């Protein structure tokens, strides 16, 4: 699941983030694992946010000349 090598698609990143939050919440992971999960979660949240912000910016830019 957690592949760091290539940038995941938005949906893959979001689903993985949700999974990480759940496993962090149920508290079954060791501290060391939790720390790794949290780091990965932060990274994924950033990827998702950037993706969406970028898409929105593109939309706004495309819409401007038409109005």
């Amino acid at each position: 699941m957690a592949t760091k090598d290539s940038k995941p698609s938005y949906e893959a990143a979001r689903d993985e983030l949700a999974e990480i939050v759940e496993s962090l919440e149920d508290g079954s992971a060791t501290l060391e694992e939790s720390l790794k999960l949290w780091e990965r979660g932060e990274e994924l949240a950033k990827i998702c946010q950037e993706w969406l912000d970028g898409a929105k910016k593109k939309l706004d830019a495309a819409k401007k000349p038409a109005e």
Partner: protein
Amino acid sequence: MFETSSESPAPVRVVSEAIKDYIDRLGPIWIEGEISELNERSGGMAFMRLRDTSADMSISVMCYKTVLASVQPLPANARVVIYAKPSWFTKNGSLTLSAKEIRQVGVGELLARLEALKEKLALEGLFSADRKIALPRLPRRVGLICGRNTDAEKDVVENARRRWPSVQFEIREVAVQGAAAVVEVSAALSELEANPEVDVIIITRGGGSFEDLLPFSDESLVRLAASCTTPIVSAIGHEKDSPLLDLVADYRASTPTDAAKRVVPDIAQEISDIEKIRDRMFRRLVSTIDYELNQIAQLRNRPVLKDPSVMVTSRRDEIKGWRDRSIRGFTSLLEIEKKELKGVKAHLRSLSPQSTMDRGYAVVQLEDGSIVRDASKAKAGTHLRIRVAKGETRATVNE
């Protein structure tokens, strides 16, 4: 006939006389066509050409003006039936029909014929709806067959340009009435049909007399139109006129303007439609992105991500708990041990000779610490240690 060769050729007069001889033997016949180029010269004779109504063929006709007078005044392009005998003029070697009688073909007769043709073609299924080809949404080129410099042409071109400014026309200006109309319209139609760039063909002409519109009911033209694979729009005459071409056309336009509307889309409408679709697309995308942004915000707001120190503090609290429990456990253990020690001490005390000594008893010991229980064991001169309730003293046995 006579023999000829390059060495003994026949003179013109002999040949022409021979032809005249042959033709003079032909009897009179009834023949139908359209009159054109009517020429009434001074003198008693009138000259004209009799044209075929479908093919580009004609024969010259002459008659006495009195023969012609029976049908005058003739409308333009009048259909007539002539009873005539072919004559050969040796003076210029020309063949002319000498008409003995001319009858105009009446409108009633033409209508009846048209009706019969209509029924025949309908039976063949030429007018059936499943033969109709859909008009293209946006043709690359529009074929236009019309009269020279006519209002019909202007109406089609101007209205089409107004709706779709970059519309491309292939215009064929042809005769749209008279004997030449069928031939010229057919030739233009075949040419435009063969042009792969032409996606739709408009055939148009303005209103006119019943005779004027007859070419557009000609069987050969109607059959040609039916065989075309390019969709055809007809806009002939006024609403009430219904030439047979209208029935085989893929769309019958009421006017040239209507034809223009049918062949090209309205650019303003198209732009507005695209704008609407674009708007819908934007709204849909924006709402999807907003939804996802909200999803991510919710995930980021969950305590594990919002305050990741919980991960450490929760464990620190856990450790503190264990430590507290450990201290508490050890303290209580110590307490128990203390109590136990007290008991042991009391017990120990109860077992010691101290209390006995307190009551005035003494313990007598030898030098080596052994207790003297038998007086005989202490000979004279033996050193004794006497322990009393408080301290001890030494003594020596006298006897």
